[in-house]
């Protein structure tokens, strides 16, 4: 249903301690955002993509498909940054391209182009970090770390109930959708709106019914106001901390030696 979720549970790195994967991901994310350097970004992108494809064994084609996912946002936003508009004279000299229409100028300045190129690399690097985390770490393992980090228990409970029922509701939404489709519910725009609205209302009604049933079921299992269960057992490993430290050092050394080169 949700392929990212599925891979998170079945990939080869799923048993690695989530805290280890989170430390690596967040360090590299922060570092690349902080230094905004193309060489660093490329290095991180290569390291994280390799981990995702070769270590976690996420299918290459699926990974590429995921990388293309944010293309719309990236293209439209970077083009927006790339082109500048000005009325009258342009106060800048270093221009790559310029067009004049009426008293308006559209232009691409050198500094803007640099900014955009660096941004694209930083973004690619960041999503490779994000994808590494979400493709290799089950959401529930991330929750476990968040609980250890003392995120309020009530918030964690809300998050967990949400997660559990996302799948229940997707399934019922899908069923309703199929039933409507077989009765020609999506054959015109007007029908589509009507059918979608009744689908949404049905799921919304299910919220209350499920809430009631869940309250009863939890009470009958001795629930006393806080969801408790055994933590899943993950082991910290010297080897992965070694690899993490190695990667971090490598990236820092790359930054010191080659930073600003491109």
């Amino acid at each position, binding site marked *: 249903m949700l*392929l990212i979720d*599925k891979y998170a549970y079945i990939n080869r790195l799923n048993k690695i301690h989530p805290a280890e994967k989170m430390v690596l991901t967040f360090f590299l994310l922060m570092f690349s955002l902080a230094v905004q350097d193309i060489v660093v970004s490329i290095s991180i992108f290569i390291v994280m993509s390799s981990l995702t494809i070769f270590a976690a064994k996420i299918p290459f084609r699926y990974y590429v498909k995921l990388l293309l996912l944010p293309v719309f946002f990236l293209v439209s936003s970077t083009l927006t940054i790339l082109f500048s508009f000005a009325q009258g004279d342009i106060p800048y000299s270093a221009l790559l391209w310029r067009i004049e229409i009426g008293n308006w100028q559209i232009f691409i300045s050198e500094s803007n182009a640099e900014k955009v190129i660096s941004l694209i690399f930083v973004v690619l690097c960041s999503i490779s970090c994000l994808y590494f985390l979400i493709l290799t770490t089950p959401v529930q393992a991330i929750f476990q770390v968040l609980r250890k980090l003392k995120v309020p228990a009530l918030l964690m409970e809300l998050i967990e109930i949400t997660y559990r029922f996302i799948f229940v509701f997707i399934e*019922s939404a899908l*069923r*309703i959708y*199929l*039933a*409507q*489709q*077989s*009765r*020609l*519910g999506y*054959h015109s725009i007007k*029908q589509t709106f009507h059918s979608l609205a*009744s*689908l949404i*209302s*049905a799921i919304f*009604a299910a919220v209350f019914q499920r809430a009631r049933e869940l309250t009863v079921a939890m009470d009958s299992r001795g629930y006393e106001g806080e969801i408790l269960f055994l933590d899943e057992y993950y082991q910290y490993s010297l080897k992965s901390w070694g690899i993490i430290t190695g990667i971090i050092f490598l990236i820092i050394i790359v930054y010191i030696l080659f930073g600003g080169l491109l």
Partner: protein
Amino acid sequence: MDEVLFELKQLTYVYPDGTAALKNISLSIRKGKKIALLGNNGAGKSTLFLHLNGILKSTSGMILLEGKPVQYDRKSLLTLRKKVGIAFQDPDSQLISGNVKQDISFGPMNLGWSKEKVNKQTEWAMKEMDVTSLQDRPIHFLSLGQKKRVAFAGILAMEPEVFLFDEPTAGLDPYYSKQIKQVLNTIHQKEKTILLSTHDIHFAYEWADEIIVISDGELLYHGHPVSLFQQEDILVSAHLEKPWVFETAQILKKKQLLSAANSMPRSKDELFELIHSFKGE
């Protein structure tokens, strides 16, 4: 009545995540027949239904409807879905809006019929399914048995030629099951083709002209009910049990408490009738 309605040719369907739900299925479905589809949960029964309605499109192989390959453009789908009505297992996913009458008119409205025709069809379907007295009730006040009948009326009102029923008696107590079975007879009297999936082997054995067995996406059997249950190997590999009427008759015949010359009884009544009229050999 032996015209072929659907012809499936080496139909294969693979879900986006790579699991094959249907494997190379070839079979033909003839007009006016009552066909029961047996198979465990996850065997591919629902997937097959969704193909016959044009909601899923096969990965390979093809489906012919009345000799012509099924097309997937908007207009062809409209014609297909007008011809083929599906009643899903869980009526709650089928009935979602408003009251009984409004829900039943959902399909007819989508067919673009005139208000009068929609109204006429809706009234008629309600009468056939015996839900006219419920017409103003909101859906969520209905019992499960009532919901099922309303869902069926919603399909019937569109006047399809083929009815696909996904486990029509699941979750119903024996009282409502019986009612649903009567409803199936009502529909069949209109010379409609009925294809239904069920776990109720006894019912399938009694009701169906033909039985189709699917296991793990593969077609294991398509033919007469009696000969199916004589083939132990198919029963084992599809996890099917024999209907008790069949099994009891087999044992009584073996023990010569029933004449071996009698044809196999198909229902409880037939079996008991045979026992009654038994004179000893």
